[in-house]
Every structure is written in structure tokens, then in C-alpha cells.
């Protein structure tokens, strides 16, 4: 099976014609058509992790979004200050659905917007003094908070505030970690640098600072699961059923203590490689903890991952692993039996952060769906190298595509489903193309693990097969030349 390589090359070139020359030349480097050769060699000439072109409606966010929105925000028993003007914290408030147990405002601060609400005077005179007062007031208002993180917005770096010094002082005074995070939005080219900066701050200020009462041979960490719609819980349950002991969950439903004791585990299991690879590579070097990438989207990948995880342990765990698979397989077969006939052959395009565009492929394929084009907002070269082998030949792989490029591709490839985020969602609704939010599961989930796959399958069927799509008063679609599917 495969798509027409030449036709898709031509299609991409045609789409790029709309740009001014300089931008056309640049954007061309961000597309690649999968071939037998790239599938095997994983070699990619595709440009990634570089600046977006100005003026083109990139789907990307910023460093602050990567740090506060993704990595730090879900750590539930710390208060995360959106340090700077009011907007950043307001817009990232509760939008990623990182579920966490606990009482909001008492021992869980995830779904809150705590900000220094910078005014002009703070810009002129600096906000360090104010930050001190804020830290004290946080201690006063939230006596059970275990720590504070200071998530810098753009002005902090620009006006030269010394949040490190303030944090140090306040950590001492308040007797708890106060972590400065230099995640100003202008740093780097996307959210991605924010993940890295956030990881470094965890490494420098939190890691290794507490001990585990007792360690065991089956101690593992879940790294890079943000518990969107409860994903980490649906993953954890399988690991625990298999006999492993999950010590730390980073960072969905995570706690300061888990961050501090994670270095005592025997193995790091990393789901979102893009956002936390920095962490596991550091822990491998510093503490000798090996890591394993896994993928709990869809039963095929979940079986594969469970077995790969079990292979790192002894026969007991391996037997348990087979038992877990045997227990859930009939349920998964039933789900596939029900939904696959309704979804077989449906063409999907994906544009998601830095991982799910490849991680979810298996889940779609389990349902008989075909990925014709996929791309990332903020992936790096290694992400693409991992993507090529999972895609069929002739499929289009793209980096930081603009809204315009995606809309053209969606129409010309005649897709049946688009998976991306809320900025894209309603555009596809207008076009009459079924759409699922793949950043935050669209107020649904979990999607990870076996419990998650049931919901994933139901959601995809709901999206693709809902009768509303038949009500469109659409113009007759003409298959343009160059489209290969």
C-alpha cells in the first residue's frame, strides 16, 4: 500500500506557489514525501525546530506555553505564578485538561490562574520586590502549597528582573522550593524550548532532593504524561496490574515529592519523548537510570510497549504482562470488531505538538484508518526520524505547517478526518471535514491505555460518522490534478 509519491510532491509544490519567493523557498524545506528509502533509513532532509516565518498563521505557541502550560502547570501541589502581565496565565488557564486529584485551592492548584498581573510601574521599576510579596502572600493564602514556581513571561527577561535571586531568598524564608523558570515567550522558536527550560529547572531545583522510604526492584516512573482527560491514570493502571510500582508520575497529577524521589526508580518510562527527553537522558547520566520510550495509543502499540517494558524485568513481570494483555485483548478485539468496519479506509491528516502525530498512528491503524499526511508544531529532527518508518510511502510529512497549507492539503487530499487543536477545529467544521482535537481530547478522554482506546475508538466513530456531516449544502468537490488519494 502506498500513495503516489510524485503526485504528492507536485501537490505540495503547487500549494507553496502562493508564497512570496523567500518564504516559498523556506517552506519547501519543511515538507518531505515518505519513500521506501526514507522509511528504511529514517533519513530526513526536512527542516525542523527553526523559526516560523512571520505573518503566516503558524499553529505554534511559545516557551511559556511549553513550561507553564505543559510541564510545570500540572504539578498539583505547587503554586505556579504566571509572572508578568495578566494574559498568558489567563489564556493557559484550565485549557489542557490535566486532571489532578485533590481540593482546588487547598492542596491542588492546577486549575487556577495565579499571576503577578504586571502593570506599567512594574515594567519601569522591575517586579522583583513585588515577586517577594507575592511569594509571601501565596504562603499565607495557600498554607498547604508545597512549593512555588515562577513562570517568566516575556517582559521579565526583557527588563532584566533577577527572579533567581528573589527565588533563592524566598525559598529560604518560606522554607520550601521556589523555582525560577526562565521560559519567556520570545525564547526559542516554539513551545519546545519551554519544555527544555522547564526540565532544566526541575533538574536544578527539585531533582534528588528527597528520598524514598524503601525502594524495590520494580520501581518505575511515568515520564511525559500530562494526564489529559486522565491519560496517566489509564496508563498507570496497566503498569501496576503488571506488578510494577509507579513511583513518580510526571507531570500530570504529579506532586513535588514525586519529582524529588524519582531518581530512586529503576527505570524511566517515557511517553512524550519530545517534552521530557531532557529529563530521562539526564537521569540516565546522573543516576544511571535507563529509560524506555513507550506508546500507549491503540492496542497494537500498547501490547508492543507492555512487552517491551516487561522485557526489562524478570519472568514474573513478563508473565504478568501476558496476563494483562490476555485480560484486555478480548475487550480490545470487541472494540475493533465494532468500530473498524465503520472507519476502515478513512483518510486522516494530523497536525499535533511534537509526538502524537506519530504516536497515534497505530491507534488509527488499529481502526483501519489511513494516515495520509502528518506533521508537528514543534518537533525536532529525531521526532521526524521516528515518524518516517511509521508512515506509508507517499504520505506527506510536514513541519510547522501554516493554516493555509493545512487547509489546502485537507481539501486536495480529500481527507475524512483532521486531528489538531482548537485554533484549527472550527475551520474544518466550516469545511465540512470531521475534526478531533488531539491536544486535549476535546473534553473527552482518556485516550491512553486500554480504557483509553475504547474512548478513542468511540470518539473517532462519533466524529467521522455523525450524520451532521451529511447536512452540508456543499458545492460538488472536484478532484484536482496532482492529488493522489
Amino acid at each position, binding site marked *: 500500500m502506498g500513495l503516489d509519491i510524485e503526485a504528492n510532491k507536485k501537490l505540495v509544490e503547487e500549494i507553496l506557489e502562493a508564497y512570496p519567493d523567500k518564504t516559498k523557498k523556506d517552506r519547501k524545506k519543511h515538507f518531505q514525501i515518505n519513500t521506501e528509502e526514507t522509511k528504511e533509513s529514517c533519513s530526513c532532509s526536512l527542516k525542523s525546530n527553526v523559526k516560523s*516565518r512571520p505573518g503566516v498563521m503558524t499553529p505554534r505557541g511559545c516557551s511559556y506555553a511549553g513550561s507553564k502550560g505543559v510541564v510545570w502547570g500540572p504539578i498539583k501541589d505547587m503554586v505556579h505564578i504566571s509572572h508578568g502581565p495578566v494574559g498568558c496565565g489567563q489564556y493557559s488557564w484550565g485549557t489542557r485538561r490535566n486532571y489532578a486529584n485533590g481540593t*482546588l485551592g487547598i492542596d491542588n492548584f492546577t486549575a487556577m490562574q495565579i499571576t503577578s498581573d504586571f502593570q506599567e510601574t512594574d*515594567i519601569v521599576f522591575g517586579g522583583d520586590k513585588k515577586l517577594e510579596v507575592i511569594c509571601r*502572600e501565596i504562603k499565607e493564602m495557600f498554607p498547604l502549597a508545597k512549593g512555588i514556581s515562577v513562570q517568566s513571561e516575556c517582559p521579565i527577561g526583557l527588563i532584566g528582573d533577577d527572579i533567581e535571586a528573589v527565588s533563592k531568598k524566598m525559598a529560604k524564608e518560606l522554607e520550601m522550593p521556589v523555582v525560577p523558570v526562565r521560559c519567556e515567550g520570545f*525564547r526559542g522558536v516554539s513551545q519546545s524550548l519551554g519544555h527544555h527550560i522547564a526540565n532544566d529547572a526541575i533538574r536544578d531545583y527539585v531533582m534528588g532532593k528527597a528520598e524514598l522510604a524503601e525502594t524495590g526492584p520494580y520501581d518505575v516512573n511515568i515520564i511525559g504524561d500530562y494526564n489529559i482527560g486522565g491519560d496517566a491514570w489509564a496508563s498507570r493502571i496497566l503498569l501496576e496490574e503488571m506488578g510494577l510500582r509507579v513511583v513518580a508520575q510526571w507531570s500530570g497529577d504529579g506532586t513535588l515529592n514525586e519529582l524529588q*524521589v524519582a531518581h530512586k526508580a529503576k527505570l524511566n518510562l517515557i511517553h512524550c519523548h519530545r517534552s521530557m527527553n531532557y529529563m530521562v537522558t539526564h537521569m540516565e547520566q546522573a543516576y544511571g537510570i535507563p529509560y524506555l520510550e513507550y506508546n500507549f495509543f491503540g492496542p497494537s502499540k500498547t501490547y508492543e510497549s507492555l512487552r517491551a517494558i516487561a522485557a526489562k524485568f524478570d519472568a514474573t513481570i513478563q508473565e504478568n504482562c501476558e496476563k494483562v494483555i490476555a485480560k484486555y485483548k478480548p475487550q480490545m478485539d470487541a472494540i475493533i470488531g465494532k468500530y473498524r468496519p465503520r472507519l476502515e479506509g478513512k483518510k486522516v491528516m494530523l497536525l499535533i505538538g511534537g509526538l502524537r502525530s506519530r504516536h497515534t498512528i497505530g491507534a488509527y491503524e488499529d481502526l483501519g484508518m489511513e494516515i495520509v499526511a502528518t506533521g508537528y508544531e514543534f518537533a525536532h529532527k529525531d521526532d521526524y526520524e521516528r515518524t518516517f518508518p511509521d508512515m506509508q510511502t507517499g504520505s506527506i510529512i510536514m513541519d510547522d505547517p501554516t493554516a*493555509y497549507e493545512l487547509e489546502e492539503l485537507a481539501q486536495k487530499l480529500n481527507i475524512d478526518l483532521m486531528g489538531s487543536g482548537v485554533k484549527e477545529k472550527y475551520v474544518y467544521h*466550516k469545511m465540512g471535514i470531521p475534526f478531533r482535537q488531539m491536544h486535549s481530547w476535546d473534553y*473527552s478522554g482518556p485516550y491512553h491505555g486500554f480504557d483509553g482506546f475504547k474512548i478513542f475508538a468511540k470518539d473517532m466513530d462519533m466524529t467521522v460518522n455523525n450524520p451532521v456531516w451529511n447536512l452540508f449544502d456543499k458545492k460538488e468537490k472536484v478532484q484536482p490534478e496532482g492529488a493522489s488519494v
Partner: protein
Amino acid sequence: MSKERIDIPDYSTLFTEERYVQQRENKKQFEAPCSDEAKAEALAYSKSAEYLEKNFERKAVVINPHKACQPLGSVMAALGFEKTLPFVHGSQGCNSYFRSHLSRHFKEPTPAVSSSMTEDAAVFGGMSNMIDGLQNAVALYKPEMVAVCTTCMAEVIGDDLSAFIGNARQKGAIAEDFPVTFANTPSFIGSHITGYDAMIKNILSQLFDRSGQTAAPGTGEEGEKLNVLLGFEPYTGNFAEIRKILNAFDTKYTILGDHSGNYDSPANGEYEYYYGGTKLADVPKAANALGSLVLQKYTLKKTQEYISGTWKQPISSLSTPLGVKATDKLLEAISQLTGLPVPESLKEERGRVVDAYTDSHPYLHGKRVALAGDPDLLLGLIGFCLEVGIEPVHILCSNGDVEFDGKKWKEEVEALLATSPYGSEATVYVGKDLWHLRSLLINDPVDLAIGSSHVKFAAKDAGVPLVRVGFPIFDRHHMHRNPIIGYQGALNLLTLIVNIVLEQLDNNPSGLVDLVR
């Protein structure tokens, strides 16, 4: 339909299953959680009068504010004009946030681009980003105008928009005569409403200046009789309602800044970047109108100064006209500006709403409510409450402070409250946030909270039902499609509120349920 039934619990029930409850307990051994006693104590403390006092003493930290930042308002303002592309000059993350925030409220796309400034721009300035950005944006999205606003980054480094845009023209990135309007909208000043005002004012003044015409109030043709400005308007239905009202008057008018098309467009299999909006050519013509009708006077402060100062027009300044009396005032204002009598059809509609009020009043009378929102919306809501016998108790405005001449707003609110015995219980909190409101709701309980989706956390903690009105409403569908202004809007608000009260009654602790109300 398959006869075979597979039960698929989702997040709302899955995690109540025993195995997940067990997991939750098990995880605690690694969480180093606070003891149950400590948690109970902290929870009780957070609900105490002592805590309320401390909460109101805090000077620096802001917790759950009910406001967003300037450029968000500017993006909305730009989308009110025909084929206008909002262009956010600064870090691209801001633009992504504005697009997603507005899209979550309206459930519609928000086209907007950014100049994607990064570290090098922080050092050298964002001019090349602006030049390339304008060229790309115009080539790709084919707007007829670009409306540039700034983020805090561009403002802190002091980028000169006018010079940059000029240079973009000189370098041929955009044509000499292509309109690029702009506004400085640092996020550390004001809020979404000030940003809305700044952009509307600048679009009006810059398009007017370009036209080279002089203002001549009252000389316009039929089309330019009356200008209408709704402000930072989260309800697309309100645009339809004001149109309905003006059409009933049989007067011609121009809505200045009409984003309703962009945020209420049909799904017909094709996506266009631009739906509706005020025609660019209508903006200079608007300088010839008889007068301007402003429906969010605190939001549109600078815009009004411009219209009265430069266009020399009379302005009728209102706050969001919610309820019968405020709508009466709206109609009087239209009458005054146009010289036309209030049409019979609207008088009849008024009567029907008053009829509905009388039917519902037993369920509303004496209900104590908390209100949170933007300054003009709050004035409207208070007016509505007072005329149906609802008693506002806590009135909270996060963004009604300094830049809004807070004292003046507060004075007007207090004067309005003083007009009715139902207003005697109220206290107005300017510049406070929703964590303050939580303390108030717990310590001085009310029957209902009225405000945006963000109010739901405080309302939930206090066990008070929330009536969703304002911006943003993320967690309910289609609220913005129904008007809340005008007589029809009064009826809609009444329906919304009274039915929440009735639903509460059906869930009353006695278990006694009435069929007839």
C-alpha cells in the same frame, strides 16, 4: 445501530471505578500528601472570616482574575472590519493564545497572524519580522486591510510601528496604498476592553485620515445617519438584536466594528478567512453621520473622545442595555439621535417582556446574587436585577480600576444601586479577583452567581449555581448566539435566570416536587 452494546465509560465515570479509587489511594504513598486533618483544617480556614480578611489584605498576588490582556481585544476589534487581518506584533505564542481563547468562546475560527518575534528580535527589534510578516500575510491571506497590535514584548523593546510599516511600504513588501492600521496595546496596561478601544479608535481615525475628508456631522446620505458601536461584545446575537431594533425604527445606520459575521458564519463546506464586518469605505463616511450610539461607554472611552472631538458628533453613551428600562433608554437615545419616534412594534415587544417579568417575578423576588464581569456589562446586569426584584449583593469588576476611571464607574454603579431598595445590600469591588469573590460567596452567601465560565470555581466552592453571562463562556454552547440586549435580550436573560432558579427548586432538599409553576 448495532445491537451489541459495549459499555464505554469516559472520564466522567471511569475514575469512580473501584480499581481507579484504589490507584488514587495507592499513589498517595509517593505524593507526601498533607494529612486529612491538615487538609480539613486548611479548607475550613479558607472558608473563615479570618481568611476573608487576609484575602482582602493581599496587595500583590492576583488569583483568578476576571480579565484578559489588551491585544486580545484588539484582535476582536480588527475582526469587526471587512477583510481585515489581525496582525499581532510580538512573540507568536500570544497570537496562538488569542486565537484559541476567542475560538473557545465563540466556537468559531479566529484568523490572525503574528510577526513571530524571537530572541534576535528582542535584541535588534522586530522590524524585519514586521516587513516579512506583512508581505507574507498579504500574499497568503489576501486581506484588504491589516490591523497591527502589539504585545508586551514589542512594547518593552520599544518597536516603532508607524516607522516599521512605513519601511515595509518603502521596501515594497506591501503596496503604498494598502491600509495598515495599528494600535499600541501593551499587556501591562488595561485589559481586553482597553485593547478593544485602542484598536477601534485607531482604525476609525486612521481610515478617516487616509480618506482626506473632513468631518461634517449630519451631512451624510441615508446610509450614514447613525453610527452604532457595541464594544467588546461577546454576544453575536446582540448585533442581530441591535439591527432588528434599528430596522424597526426604519433608520439607516453603520455599525462600526461588527465582528458578528466572523463569529457566526455558516458551515457550508468552504472556509473563508473573512465573513462580514464593517466595510472599510463606510468608516470615513461615518464621520458625516448625525451622531453615534455607544453601547459600552466605559469600554469605548478613547473612541468616544475621538468621535466627539474629531468627528464633532453627538454621542449617546450607554452601558450594555440589559433589561426593559435600559432598552427604553436605548430606544430614547435612538429617537433623539435620529428624530424618529419609537416604533409600535417595539412597544408591543416591550409589553410582552413585561408580561413575562410578571409571570416570573415570584421566583426572582429577593434573590440575592453575586455579579462578576466587565464594567458596562455589570451596569446592565445590575439594572436588570433591580427591575425584576433581584438583589445584587457582591459586584466584582477585575478590570474596572485605574484606567477606567474606576471611581467614576463605581460612583455610577452606586448611584444606580441607590435608585432601588433592592440595591441596598450591594457592595462594589473594583480591581478584585475571583478568589476574593470565593471568600465573599462563602462568607456572605447568595442564591445565584452571574458571570463567565471562570466564575464556576468560586461558585462551586460556595455551592451556588452559576448563570453564565459575559466572557468567556467556554463550557456551555451557543449562549453567545442569543441576544441579551434589547427587549428580546431581556426575555432571554429572564428565561435563563428563572429556569435555573426553578431547576434548583426541583432539586430541593425536601424532595417535594411541583408540576406546575
